[in-house]
């Protein structure tokens, strides 16, 4: 029962995810270098935050072609739980596992702060430990987190209950206050806030614990 943590050149939250899962929650983890293809024995996969491949071209645009992600896509298509945090969320949209795209914050600033959020878990596996309408606080740290999707597709997303995490203060100008979305079947979650930075008591909050704890059901 092991959780895979993907490392791209430029990832910088892989150790934080490792600490949250293994140090705080006692889960077994395995790092996956971006060139690896072996996901055998993994129960879930996390794409951590950072600046994969320097965020060249667009955030996540180059990462999409990493060998490990071909396997992650197959894993997700078969119902395997996949979590994309921050840059990981950007990569999931570029891969087409989640709709939309993350663009430059409306205010242009890189935002590094705690944000109030509302959870609407629906059928998202990763949020099964939160109740509908629950308000939590998670830190954000991004320059390109403004979720963008045309109104027609946005309506479909809302109708399907795929918007599972919303900002209560919308710090970056995201459409419909979107902070996190899930896929139709609920096994893939992408979110801009960092749950792994809210797992240890010393970090000022543990609202992210139940999210990462859901990795192994």
């Amino acid at each position, binding site marked *: 029962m092991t959780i895979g943590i993907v490392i791209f050149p430029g990832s910088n939250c892989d150790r934080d995810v490792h600490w949250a899962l293994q140090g705080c929650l006692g889960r077994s983890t395995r790092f996956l270098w971006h060139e690896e293809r072996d996901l055998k024995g993994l129960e879930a996969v996390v794409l951590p935050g950072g600046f994969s491949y320097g965020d060249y*071209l*667009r955030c996540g*645009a180059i990462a999409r*072609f990493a060998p490990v992600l071909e396997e992650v896509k197959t894993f997700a298509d078969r119902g395997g739980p996949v979590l994309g945090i921050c840059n990981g969320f950007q990569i999931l*949209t*570029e891969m087409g596992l989640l*709709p*939309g*795209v993350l*663009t*430059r*914050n*409306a*205010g*242009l600033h890189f935002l590094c702060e705690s944000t109030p959020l509302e959870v609407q878990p629906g059928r998202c596996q990763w949020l099964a430990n939160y109740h509908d309408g629950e308000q939590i606080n998670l830190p954000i740290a991004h320059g390109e987190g*403004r979720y*963008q*999707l*045309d109104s027609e597709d946005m309506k479909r997303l809302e109708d399907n209950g795929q918007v599972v995490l919303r900002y209560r203060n919308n710090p970056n*100008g995201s459409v419909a206050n979107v902070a996190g979305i899930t896929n139709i079947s609920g096994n893939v979650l992408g979110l801009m806030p960092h749950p792994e930075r809210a797992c240890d008591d010393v970090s000022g909050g543990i609202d992210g614990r139940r999210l990462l704890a859901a990795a192994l059901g």
Partner: protein
Amino acid sequence: MAWQDLTKARTTVPLYNARVQISLRPSVLDPAGEATRAAATRLGVTGIKRLRIGKAIELELEAADRATAEAQVTLLSDRLLANPVIEDWSLELAELN
């Protein structure tokens, strides 16, 4: 025609210069463009009604013919250079040799 020329004619693949111009779709907010427009006003340049920031990518590629070159750059632009959710792109293609 000398035999050297025949060999040369057979092995030379046309080279194309492609310029892909990527722009944000009109419905997408461009905060960097807005900030630049505000700075332009402070510089004293007035009358700017619209300023949008995009990017241009130039490449040279070998292809059997123009249609092949166009198909290759179209694939590249659709799948890698631009994200169709927020961006449009246009192509200028010219043969170099």
